């Protein structure tokens, strides 16, 4: 009898001891993918070495007039703010310069004129009228306008904003814009015409009322420019007809609800330089004219038409709810450079995406990385074309890397 006891008990013990295998699904590798941390993207103010910026010399080249060097600037007016007064020196026939306190208004009916701007004002501005292209040489200027744009070009021609080498310049708008009938002022630095940024100085733009830099035409940024835009209100850098970045060290940081770090309503082309755009805002929830809910998510970069990346170092990050690293409304083509887009926000009102492309997406060179913590890293509505020749193609639950 005892022997039978032992056999039965030993059998039960043996069966119990072999019942120690978990029947859980093996999730280790999957969860490891989900716990993957994104590439670090922070504002980068380090020095940037860039190739020599060679101006276009062919007058038939559409970009010819974007080079300030291709224009003779013999007519010069100096505007110097000294805190409580402004001194204006130099006269140019056909150019009227008036000051109301530190608020300076220029009517330019002459040809190309260079305005050399320097000094500090906490309640001043520069406003330009006239359909002639002109140059604003920021030579250590610090302009804050509590009631609107710090620099406002109401003319439709090119405004060359040149940063004098070695200088630090600061432009800031105010929280309450005082509007003038039939005039726009959409940003701390605003122009109805093109804005061409060049030079080897620094420009800091602080936007608290509206956007940072905005053109109702297009914006070109050339190598050597050191640009920092911080906006707690609307978009950091925005243009209606396109943005071309040939170079420069650009940092853009936005904190407003639904705000975009960089937004190009026209075609955007990045050829060089370093663009770091970080958008921290959550969704802006409003209503359409029909009264329907209208929810707009923030994005580090929005391009409404074609985005082409030929070169440069692009780093995009959105941290707010539903925020996108890149939100492209049409096609995206990446042919070179380094492109990184990260979305770490929540998805309460909108889905965050590292890269969202409503058109097609094509890559044929460079380095591409996208990460989204709470959704697919890359969402393409149209076709996705990845040219052969890449040495790395790695897709995980949260990230995608393609490198040539």
């Amino acid at each position, binding site marked *: *009898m005892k022997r039978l006891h032992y056999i039965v008990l030993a*059998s039960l013990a043996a069966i119990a001891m072999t019942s*120690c*295998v978990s*029947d859980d699904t093996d999730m280790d590798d999957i969860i490891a993918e*989900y716990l993957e941390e994104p590439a670090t993207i922070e504002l980068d103010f380090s020095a940037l070495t860039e190739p020599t910026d060679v101006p276009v010399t062919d007058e038939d080249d559409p970009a010819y007039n974007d080079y300030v060097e291709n224009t003779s600037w013999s007519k010069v007016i100096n505007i110097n703010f000294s805190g409580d007064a402004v001194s204006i020196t130099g006269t140019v026939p056909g150019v009227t310069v008036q000051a109301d306190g530190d608020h300076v208004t220029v009517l330019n009916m002459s040809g190309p004129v260079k305005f050399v701007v320097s000094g500090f004002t906490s309640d001043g501005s520069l406003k330009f009228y006239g359909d002639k292209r002109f140059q604003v040489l920021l030579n250590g200027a610090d302009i804050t306008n509590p009631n609107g744009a710090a620099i406002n070009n109401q003319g439709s021609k090119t405004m060359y904003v040149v940063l004098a080498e070695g200088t630090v310049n600061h432009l800031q708008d105010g929280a309450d814009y005082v509007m003038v009938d039939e005039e726009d002022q959409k940003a701390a630095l605003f122009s109805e015409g093109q804005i061409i940024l060049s030079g080897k100085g620094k420009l800091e733009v602080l936007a608290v009322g509206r956007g940072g830099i905005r053109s109702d035409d297009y914006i070109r940024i050339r190598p050597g420019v050191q640009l920092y835009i911080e906006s707690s209100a609307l978009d950091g850098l925005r243009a209606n007809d396109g943005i071309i970045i040939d170079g420069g060290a650009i940092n853009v940081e936005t904190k407003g609800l639904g705000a975009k770090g960089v937004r190009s309503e026209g075609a955007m082309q990045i050829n060089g330089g370093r663009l770091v755009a970080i958008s921290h805002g959550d969704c802006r929830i409003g209503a359409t004219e029909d009264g329907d809910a209208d929810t707009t998510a923030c994005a580090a970069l929005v391009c409404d038409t074609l985005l082409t990346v030929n070169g440069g170092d692009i780093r995009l990050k959105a941290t707010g709810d539903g925020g996108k690293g890149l939100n492209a409304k049409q096609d995206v083509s990446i042919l070179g450079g380094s492109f990184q887009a990260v979305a770490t926000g929540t998805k309460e009102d909108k889905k965050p995406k590292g890269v969202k492309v409503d058109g097609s997406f094509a890559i044929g060179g460079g380095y591409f990385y996208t990460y989204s913590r709470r959704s697919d890293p890359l969402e393409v509505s149209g076709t996705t074309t990845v040219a052969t020749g890449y040495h790395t193609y790695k897709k995980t639950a949260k990230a995608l890397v393609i490198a040539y």
Partner: protein
Amino acid sequence: MARSKREQLAGLLLLLCALLTPTLSLADDAGLVATIEASHKFSKKLNAGFEAEFRSRNNFRTADRVGLGADVSYKLLPWLKASAGYTLLIDNNREKITYQDDGVSYNNWRPSYWGLRHRFNVSLTASYKVKRVELSLRERWQYTYRPSKTIDNFDFDEAMWEDHLVHAKGKNVLRSRLQAEWDIPKCKFDPFASVEFHTTRELEKTRFIVGVSHSVKKKHEFKVYYRYQVTGSSSDEPNIHMLGLGYNYKF
């Protein structure tokens, strides 16, 4: 029974375990339910006992439950018995996976976890003997209380581990069992069969059991049985084939 026959019985039990596993349906699970019981008859009417139970699932490979219980029964009438009991259940709760709307992408994963439950029951059993077959009907009200517990949950949306509170819950179940036991002359093995329904607001489980019991010197009782448990459509648990082994020491 001769010693060699007893050894053959034990060997047969082990063989059953080995043979059952590969022959089961892929859709169904299989496991073991093993019980060791000690009981004492205080009088002709009063009986009390302790029981330890072990269950496995996942084709005998995963521990499912450990239970420790005590019960007391009293014969109200020669054909009617009342009983009450308490069992401490230590359950290995199955993992739970939820999916996104697309039905493919993960939404949440809660790994399996061990948790406690307290179970109380009262029963009435009516018996009726027809020749050598004893028919019995047991109606049992069972109340199980699960204390709250904080467990791990992986939220794929948020891509993070988070604490998930399993709320305390009480559950009432009516268990109705109809059983037949045969007393075969000159045979030391007594076959039995039963069907049991677990009902809440709907039928949750049905258990079909066939087996034999064997007593040695009226002190030792062994049972071996096959149990097939069919779960209701609202349950996440699969149907399960179980090999039952029991030993009762009467003192």
